[in-house]
């Protein structure tokens, strides 16, 4: 028996077991529990009684205008931040990949925003973007430009949140792409140079294809993270003006932990998960196709 326990094939499982138990308790169990809850009507603030309503919560989501509005904003936000951060990150990574004075200084400076907690970033930008007293508008007025209603105009406020995200998370793209650029094999570039390829051609036909796997991963990571937008909405706009900056995560939080509609919040969470999963798979598939 003791020999069996000590056998090499089992030992690896002993090492993995704590992780598996942790994963089951902290991830799988809550997910299954939430899935079960999504078929019930449970208002935790009223009492422990749960009524089975089948797909009722999911049907209500289809009719929920607030959900569709928040989904629209969340998709806009994710699309914008991923595209802008990827483009900026790639451009900056290419610049920082060259040799010039103070290169290391700039590398560190660019990384600083990423190190701040998002809620602190939200507090900082709330002050910067305040239309009347904020520094940004004061500067605009000082150079003769008109005031911008950064957080009070329903068509500008969503863009303001995108700006904050780009400020904080472009360094993440930059860091990963810079590492990828630095590990590129030099001989391919040498061969391209011998063949007379221009800088632009080299970038488009060598750098981008070689970077494709890392770009796919980065796009996915940033998109999934951006989908979870909460802190900027909470800290900068509170979801306003006119509910135009309320993210899906913020809405789920409100349903679950402000109104305590646990069944509906669970159904929303599952729909949210399926949307993120669907989009991730779509992005992955299209980028793989592109890479081939």
């Amino acid at each position: 028996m003791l020999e069996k326990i000590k056998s090499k094939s089992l030992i690896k499982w002993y090492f993995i077991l704590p992780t598996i138990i942790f994963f089951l308790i902290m991830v799988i169990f809550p997910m299954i529990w939430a899935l079960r809850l999504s078929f019930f009507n449970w208002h935790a603030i009223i009492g422990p009684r749960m009524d089975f309503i089948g797909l009722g919560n999911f049907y209500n989501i289809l009719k929920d205008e607030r959900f569709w509005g928040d989904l629209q904003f969340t998709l806009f936000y994710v699309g914008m931040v991923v595209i802008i951060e990827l483009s900026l990150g790639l451009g900056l990574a290419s610049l920082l990949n060259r040799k010039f004075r103070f290169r290391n200084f700039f590398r560190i400076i660019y990384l600083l925003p990423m190190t701040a907690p998002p809620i602190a970033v939200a507090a900082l930008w709330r002050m910067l973007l305040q239309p009347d007293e904020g520094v940004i508008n004061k500067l605009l007025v000082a150079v003769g430009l008109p005031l911008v209603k950064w957080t009070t105009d329903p068509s500008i406020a969503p863009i303001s949140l995108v700006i904050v995200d780009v400020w904080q998370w472009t360094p993440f793209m930059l860091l990963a792409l810079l590492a990828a650029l630095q590990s590129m094999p030099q001989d391919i570039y040498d061969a391209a140079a011998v063949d007379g390829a221009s800088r632009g051609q080299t970038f488009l036909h060598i750098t981008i294809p070689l970077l494709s796997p890392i770009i796919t991963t980065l796009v996915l990571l940033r998109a999934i993270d951006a989908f979870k937008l909460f802190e900027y909405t909470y800290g900068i706009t509170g979801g306003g003006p006119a509910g135009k900056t309320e993210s899906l995560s913020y809405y789920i939080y409100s349903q679950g932990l402000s109104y305590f509609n646990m069944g509906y919040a669970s159904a929303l969470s599952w729909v949210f998960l399926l949307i993120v999963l669907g989009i991730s798979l779509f992005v992955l598939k299209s980028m793989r196709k592109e890479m081939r």
Partner: protein
Amino acid sequence: MKKKSKKRVVSLIIMVGIIIGIFSFSAIAKTTLNVLATKPQSTVIDNFGPQWEKVSGVKINKIEIPYPVLFDKVMTDFITGTRAYDLICVPADWMGDLAGGGWLMPLDKLKNEYGYPEWKDVTPAIQKVVKWAGKMYALPFDGDCHNFYYRKDALENPKYQAKFEKEYGYRYNVPPKTWKEVRDIAKFFNGWDWDNDGEIEHGIEFIAKRKTQAQWSLIDLAAQYTVLHGKTDKYHGVLFFDPETMEPLINTPGWIEAMKMLHELTKYGPPGLLSYGYSENRITFVKGTCAMVFDWGDIGVMEQNPKKYGSTVKGLVGYSPLPGAKKVWDRKENKWLSKYSQTNFLDFGGWVWVIPKTSKDPGQAYKFITYVTNPKRSLQEVTGEVYCGANPWRFSHFTGLDEWIKAGWSKKSATAYLKAIRSILNDPEAALDLRIPGSNEYYDYLDLYLSKVLAGKMSAENACKKISEIWENITKKYGKKRQLNIYRESLGLKPLE
């Protein structure tokens, strides 16, 4: 070598033992009260907590969180049974969820056991808001109602008054008597330097940002167009629901008119008005940016303290109850009644302290709050001497003028400020805030759709219709009959059979 390591192990065990012993001893020696509050209410703990720790030997552990998540944290703690808090500072209008939900400890027994410092000194309105279903569930801390503030140097200036009369064809009242008058005055004073300080000023400001209590700005106006005075019944003295059917009243012309008017007022405020929460509203007004504002009593305290809040308007501010309206919607006759009507509204009902049923030491929690809210200390709080967001709520707060002057108020300002608040708190027909289970959810949807109207993205008619539908669903969720009877009770009406 072996001996050495044995010695090391023994000394390590002894050291660990000593450390554990010290911590256990200090834990036994001092009870710790976990007190949850938002800012600035939490500053009462900074001000008086150390004194009380010395007197009682009980340690206060202050847990400070922002207002928008207070309800979420409190309810999550109750529902999950975490028992993290022994004492919590909450708005009185949450009584429906907190006391009605059975999460709070009734305090009558503790009051009998430990006494209460000068209960007769507490104004009747505040005695009422700390009770739920006839029992006392909260300890008073604050006497909340919205006041109307105006710049005397602007509105009382004869030159401006004459200019206004020429432009608008009538002479305005000081303080303004109706919201229509407020709108015209706001329009008149918007966008020019009327106090000659070299800066452009604006007409009016109020709390308008989503999730920062903007719904109370609307209710201030809605009360004027909706509440018919008289003995409370189906048609009189009601603001939110029909007390016989629980049908929401928000989709009636009175509320719609109020929403339209509030939207109109946004045109005559600062460009960033829709980003104004209560902090921005107060700070900008005392810095001299607007002619008028409506808010709780805190603005008066801040106005009087240039050093702390950068006030540039000390002594230049006039105070009054909310303006009224020249018409009020009569639901019985289904038409506008053309008569002047003014309704005082106890927005929020004031901050109160509650003791959860799961509190580890309710006796000490009770003693701490009665210590910090006794007549002497509470007077220091409401005058702003030790500011913590509390406004007058004891009779003695209105008479102890010396303490107000000691806190930096001029006699004239203090007298006018107290007169305005006293007239609201003493009004027997003052409308009470919504105090039924789910008030947080009812109000959050009101806030959401109001923000759409203020941003010009939805008409007042559509918003009120939408809110009414949502309120119906929330009522259904909580149980119509139960909600109806609780609402009736909050109005002082008997439950329906």
